[in-house]
């Protein structure tokens, strides 16, 4: 499939940038004329991935969070949210619903479940000490 548009942004891992990331990605995706529900799905998934990078990836330090977005001519949106933080020891365990490494902070452990529910495909690659890369895809049907 041919790439029709592409963008890349990176920002500091501070909570204020969570809403910036949601708005930036939805503004990019809107050119495919998605329904409001689909746009809400994308915003929610982006919010989860970026929050994970800020809360877990850079849990005791600050760094840059990167989002790459690609649109393909079949209406596919591909998002890659990555960080160069502490990484995840056990990705399979981290993706289990309600699993959280920070229960004392009232983290719900639902981040990856939300991403998997709201996007068509989610893939997580992580290396302890090097960072995490979350790739998500969603087919956008024009509204």
């Amino acid at each position, binding site marked *: 499939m041919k790439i029709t548009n592409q963008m890349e942004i990176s920002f500091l891992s501070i*909570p204020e940038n969570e809403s910036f990331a949601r708005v930036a990605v939805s503004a990019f995706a809107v050119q495919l004329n998605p329904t409001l529900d689909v746009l809400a799905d994308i915003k929610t998934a982006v919010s989860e991935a970026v929050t994970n990078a800020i809360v877990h990836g850079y849990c005791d330090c600050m760094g840059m969070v990167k989002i790459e977005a690609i649109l393909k001519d079949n209406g596919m949106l591909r998002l890659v949210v990555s960080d160069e933080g502490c990484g995840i020891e056990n990705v399979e365990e981290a993706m289990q619903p309600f699993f959280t490494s920070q229960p004392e902070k*009232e983290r719900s*452990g639902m981040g990856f479940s939300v991403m998997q529910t709201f996007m068509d495909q989610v893939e997580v690659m992580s290396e302890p000490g090097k960072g995490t890369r979350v790739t998500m895809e969603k087919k956008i049907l024009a509204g």
Partner: protein
Amino acid sequence: MQMEKQNQTLIVYLDGELDHCSAQSIRRLLDGCIKDGEIKNMVLDMQELTFMDSSGIGVILGRYKQIKDKGGRMMVRNMNRQVERVFRLSGMNQIIETM
């Protein structure tokens, strides 16, 4: 965020976005109110809440536990579609009443 006290019930009018960024200040405000000995029940009105992610689930569940420990009830109302999807996905609809 506006709040209204009706006898033993606190009605909280959430607004804007409930994410990890806003969670801490909302949590602090609600906890301060729950400590009020008169408050037993809590209603979360989400009419003006435009967005919520799983950080919001943590905030609501944490307050639900405190209200339950006081022998009270927690209810939510007026969720938009996005908020309701996240709410249901977490299974909160099975433990928290929706009005």
